[in-house]
């Protein structure tokens, strides 16, 4: 199940951090309209796997491919197609939510302010658009980060613990967003330590120590 000519493929990836063998031959495949839920106890390399998939971390062994080609060879196209949300919201505290989005999304694609406001509205933080990220609560920051993923209009979503700090309404909202993204032909790889409780089909990958 490790080559996906129309999606994302990870083949026997090994990563060492110093002496620690963090990823021991992880393989996965993800096709359009699929969602993969990566779970596992703390310290089993979930975030490391996500960073490898992004191309931020080069694996010592193994291959990550996008549309059948190594991501190192198609880096620009691959990065244009992905939206990554790390476990920290990655917002500049001194910029407003809208400015944060404009500078992050604007590097990926031409985007208008009204589009950005619309995606902030979709995640329920339209009222925070013109507030500096410093004054936002942790949950609001998470929603702004989610709005950034939406505004990137990427095919592949790579989310690291996206439910952290979200209230019940926010959790439902994120579930709906994930569901409509996948149903609309998108791919999603979600790292979360609890059950996602989605209605669409969820593939699972359990990492062990």
């Amino acid at each position, binding site marked *: 199940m490790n080559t996906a000519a129309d999606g994302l493929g990870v083949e026997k990836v090994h990563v060492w951090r110093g002496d620690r063998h963090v990823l021991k031959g992880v393989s996965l495949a993800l096709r359009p309209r699929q969602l993969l839920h990566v779970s596992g106890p703390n310290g089993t390399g979930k975030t490391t796997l996500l960073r490898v998939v*992004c*191309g*931020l*971390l*080069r694996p010592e062994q193994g291959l990550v491919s996008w549309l059948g080609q190594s991501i190192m060879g198609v880096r*620009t196209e691959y*990065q*244009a197609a*992905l939206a*990554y949300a*790390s476990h*920290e*919201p*990655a*917002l*500049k*505290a*001194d*910029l407003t939510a809208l*400015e944060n989005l404009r*500078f*992050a999304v*604007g*590097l*990926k*694609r*031409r985007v208008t302010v009204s589009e950005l406001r619309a995606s902030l509205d979709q995640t329920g933080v339209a009222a925070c658009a013109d507030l*500096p990220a410093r004054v936002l609560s942790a949950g609001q920051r998470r929603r702004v980060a989610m709005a950034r993923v939406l505004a990137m209009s990427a095919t592949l979503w790579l989310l690291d613990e996206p439910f952290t700090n979200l209230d019940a309404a926010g959790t439902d909202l994120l579930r709906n967003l994930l569901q409509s993204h996948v149903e609309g032909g998108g791919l999603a790889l979600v790292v979360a330590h609890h059950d996602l409780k989605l209605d669409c089909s969820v593939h699972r990958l359990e990492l062990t120590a």
Partner: protein
Amino acid sequence: MNVGAWEAMFLIVRRELCLSFRRPDQLLQPLVFFLIVTTLFPLGLSLQLSLLRDMAPGVLWVAALLSSLLSLDALFKSDADDGTLEQLALSGQGLTLIVVAKTFAHWLVTGVALILVSPVVGTALGIPGSAFATMMLSLSLGTLTLSWLGAIGAGLTVGLRRGNVLLSLIVLPLAMPLLIFGAGATDRAISGVSPTGALYFLAALCVFTCTLAPFAATTALRITLE
């Protein structure tokens, strides 16, 4: 729909300027440091204008080097700490382009400010007005070169908790030629000799770092990002 390289560069420079002007304290600190250090010298030395004038180019350049170092630490570190550097690295724009834009913005904020206040400092140190043009030109070339050298150091130390001292230890030895030719050019202009030779050397160093440092800094940054 893709964003062109120039457009992306312009956007990053705007982002950096926007961030700098939101934090005026960080913008002003190196500048005030530069002013204070250079005014300490006339106070500490004997009241001989000739002695002060002899030392002025060296004092001016050492103070400029040190004050530029103050702000270098944050060049990539603040973005690395809050995770925005990862977002930039995955933006589909090459990391080199991001490094170039960020370093240029850093120079616009710190270097240009230093150049603009240098006549004030020059006057305090007894540098004659006729040498101001050379002083400012040499400082422009010097600060730009220094920003590039600093980008390499900042890229290497971005993952360290207290990388500031190490950054200075990496950058200062590399900046020695700048000090020699920069202070040399200013010194020659003060004594009325043509400073062209030293300025050419500075320009050569500037071109050298502008063309090669982006790649060195990108590599350094890529290693520490992992």
